[in-house]
């Protein structure tokens, strides 16, 4: 019954305050929605272990304060992140516009090859929509990242978003490992591998 995980991925949620980062995370980690969340101060994280192609992947997802003033404290967490969810609110044009700034923050603070993904949250509020899906898609294409519209409240595609990001990280990681000398493994990847990795999983890599 007991299983160990094969990878530990550190993910980060960023975006303007009030776009629903904490709710998205809560939906993913607890499969619940809570209307009484207050603004995130400092940092928090949640854990969920998922199964991808037979691998147990532990996702450690960091939730940050949205207000840009706090980025001195939040950028400290960019560094260790392997994947970043950029979240905006489809009913808030400004939060969408600010994605550009957040991306710049990532470029300045995160490692260069961090996987990114764009989330347009609150998509259940169609009547208040200010940002069309097309604009979201276009922005994602511009930055070469994936895009999903989600709703933490209505539980729309949140799961899918995190699985997609995790899958991309895993693929990138395994590709990198294959490219480098397989037995030794990449430098950066090693840190995220548990020490007691037993199987020769390279032979079973299905994604590449």
């Amino acid at each position, binding site marked *: *019954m*007991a*299983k*160990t*995980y094969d990878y*530990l991925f550190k993910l980060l949620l960023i975006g303007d*305050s*009030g776009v629903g980062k904490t709710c998205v995370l809560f939906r993913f980690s607890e499969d619940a929605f809570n*209307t*009484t*969340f*207050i*603004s995130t*101060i*400092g*940092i*928090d*994280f949640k*854990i*969920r*272990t998922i199964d991808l192609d037979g691998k147990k992947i*532990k996702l*450690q997802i960091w939730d940050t*304060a*949205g*207000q*840009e*003033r*706090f980025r*001195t*404290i939040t950028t*400290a967490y960019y560094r260790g992140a392997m994947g970043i969810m950029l979240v905006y609110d489809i009913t808030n*044009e*400004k939060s969408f*516009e*600010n994605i*550009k*700034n957040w991306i*710049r923050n990532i470029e*300045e603070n995160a490692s260069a090859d961090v996987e990114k993904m764009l989330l347009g949250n609150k998509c259940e509020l169609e009547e208040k*929509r*200010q*940002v*069309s899906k*097309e604009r979201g898609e276009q922005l994602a294409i511009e930055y070469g990242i994936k895009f999903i519209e989600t709703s933490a409240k209505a539980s729309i595609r949140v799961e899918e978003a995190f699985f997609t990001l995790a899958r991309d990280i895993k693929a990138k990681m395994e590709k990198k490992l294959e490219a480098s000398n397989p037995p030794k493994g990449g430098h950066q990847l090693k840190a995220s591998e*548990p020490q*007691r990795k037993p199987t020769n999983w390279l032979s079973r890599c299905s994604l590449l």
Partner: protein
Amino acid sequence: MSLNNENEYKGRLIAAVKKEVKQVMEESVTRKFVHEESGSVTSLCAAVEACLSQGLRRRALGLFKTSSTTALLHKIAKHSREAAIISKKVQEIENSDPNRRSSSSSESLTKPTLKKNHSLPSTPLPKYLWIRLALFEKQLAKIIDYLVSNANKYYDKDALVADPDYGSILSSLLVGPCALDYSRTKTPDHFWTDPPADELVQRHRISSSHSTPPPVRRPILNFRRSLNASSEDSITNRTTTQHLAKDYVESLHQNSRATLLFGKNNVLVLPVNADVSQPMPGYLSLHQTASGLTIKWTPNQLMNGFTDEVQDKSVFWDYALQVRLDEIVYVHCHQDSETGGTVILVGQDGVQRPPIHFPKGGHMLAFLSCIETGLLPRGRLDPPLWSQRCSNKRRRPLPALSETEETTKDYVFRIADNTTHKDILKQNELMDTHIALPPKSRVQLPSTSTSSESSTKSFSIDQNAPDSPPSICIQAVCDSMKRQIISRAFYGWLAYCRHLSTVRTHLSGLVNSKIVNGEGASDGITVEKWNELCTDGVVTDHAELYRLTYFGGIAHDLRKDLWPYLLGHYKFGSTTQQRMELSEETKQAYENTMSEWLAVEAIVRQRDKETQANAIAKLSSESMSGEQVPAQIQRDLSNEVFEDNISDEDSGPNVEEEDKPERTRQNTIKYDSDPEQDEKEERYQQQQLKDFIHNVIVTNASVDMGNLGSEIEANGHRNDLDVVAEENSSLDTCIETHGLASPAMSTCVSPASSNGGVYSQELLETFGLNLHRIEKDVQRCDRNYWYFTVENLDKLRNVMCTYVWEHLDIGYMQGMCDLVAPLLVIFNDESLTYACFCHLMERMVENFPNGNAMDCHFANMRSLIQILDSEMYELMHSHGDYTHFYFCYRWFLLDFKRELVYPDVYATWEVIWAAQHVASSHFVLFLALALLETYRDIILSNCMDFTDIIKFFNEMAERHNAAAVLSLARDLVLQLQLLIENK
């Protein structure tokens, strides 16, 4: 109980089991195993116990024991194989501990599993022992199955277990948990299992004894204590003659403190103050201690007479002799052919000690040679006892001292210091300077040079005595070793001094030097106390008010009156009249300020609506219109973003970019960056925009215009106003005139009106941004606390907006709402809340991103932990180094507001405010430290790393025992005060 109620109750019982089963199953999926002591296992067992107890035919079955279900288990063990296995195990465990009552499974019992704490002989067993065991042994479902199928024997017919539906549901529910593996030992994977905070706390509670969490361990203080003890020891060595008899005699033998160099029975001494005329026999001994050689002589009566009757032996104690050799200058030897010889010691004061008569047999020579070797290397006998002239190293005593010779000769030896004396002096000086010098210079003392000195010293001994006899060499080596040990102790002490000096220099600023006594203050300010303090509405004794608050808090009903004092809004000594006037002024000023920003808010709202309308219009027209219109809107909106950047990033690393706002703007619009054209284009765009907005509003009135409400008639004016404002900003002629009451606003402010206020674009945008942020946070501020209804949230928003309007340079930052909220709950008065919040922010604003207090807090925490809990510091340092203390960020930013429930926030805040006048103006540090120390054993035993500790404290939020934490924090302040005082 009616049938319905009963069914409902059963349904609830089953629902509880269902919930717990789900919890356990989830735990097994998200973690690698379920810990036997996991909270969810206990909860599941409790739920099962509740089901099994319901409707049990206790009396009919003769089950009278405390836990009937355990008794039931033993009963069915005869018929059910599974029950028999568990029953046997339960009995085994119960029998293994004779101290506990039998079969009381719902009591806490002793459990022989999982013990990391070996110091505790027996630890409390978890509750629901048999259910637990049955679950771990995977037999629970089967046992319950048996019970269900034989329910008529054991249960009433309306019992849950006897119910045709619920009974089978219960047993089938438990099939899942019975298939799980439960673990009790920590595996190497333990770190990856992330047990939730409550589980950690519970585990700790289970594994440690019932005693309250241990007070902070203070290795450094212990060290000091032991240091004191040892120094006391040496003092007693030096001075005491009044040892207990037994101790005294024992001290005559070889022991850890002193080496016995010589001992001889029946040595005769005539004590000075004795009534006897004849020398009396006694035990002569020579001891070497760290401080030097000591000669002791003890009358035989004391040596042998222990078991005799207790006739007044006290007189013999007076006869006993104890001479420290460093007080002796000359040793006179009188040789006598009849007896073994006599030794008389002459002190530095010239006084002779009583003669010591040796029996025959060369004992005097042996004694003297022992003295000589004992004196090395610091001193020697002059002239030497052993001839140095013999190069063949053969022992050859001075001829005169040989007993074989018939001549009776007297000799006088001087006890001389060796050259090493200087070194010793030096060392003494060193120690003296250490005591005398201020801390700083103490630290600067070169430790290396002293240590090298000591090593050359040990060298010189060997060199000085190249041809000394082997025994002397060994002695010298021993001595040098001893000295090295002593010097090591000395360096330990030196390190301690340095440590103290660190404390003094770095941490002395954290606490007040004056220690205020908390006597009689533990009840804090009660209504009676308040009546005493507040005579005729005037409070004068502020020191007492602070003291009482610090040690005992304030009665809830008084907070409304007292907090303004603590925060500095009310002055001590002010009269009721003065305070009323102040309140009136405050209120007036608050209302004035509010009317100012309300006017601006109206404009901002209007613009928002237009923007929203634009966006919606754009969405609908996106497909048919060209690029032109959306680009304009984007420009308008990105302006906001851009302003945002300016205010946010002025201290950031992107100064170059921010220095050229025009270009950024241009980039966004995708125009080329010719500054000449800027203004023209902007005007052009504004004109276009204006037209566009008009179009949207006029033509698309159906698009989300319903919300505008009463303001809709002002639309036309507003649009014009916007344009005016924008034009003004681009011309850099922003004038800020205001003072209009908000009702007048909507009519007065039009471009044509001469008495209307005109606000700069920048102001509008800045305040608009802040307004949006405030609204976002106010809306979700403590919604589940009873106070925050819609209208009270409105008050919160007003206070917040007023503050931001008055402090636009600071602006709104997340967390400010959290600081206003408790004040508002207590005062329930906007203007008073606002005034007090302003006072509060004087200190708190430095914690926010633009201030530097947070870094100071972190640095101070680092020092404090290092000093007060080195073990914890080690862990933090080694385990992925989280001595940056980011996990304390929220604690300091909000004065622990999010860590505690509301009543505890009140209690904590007032102590923090009072603390600066009583004990420490950095009391928050000690609170943080107290929080850490409260859970230190959990943190240490789980080897928490940074992520663990963040998770732990985030999960523990609002679940702390605030009273205990506060009291510990006060203790910690006192501890540091004492450490600094070095009492």
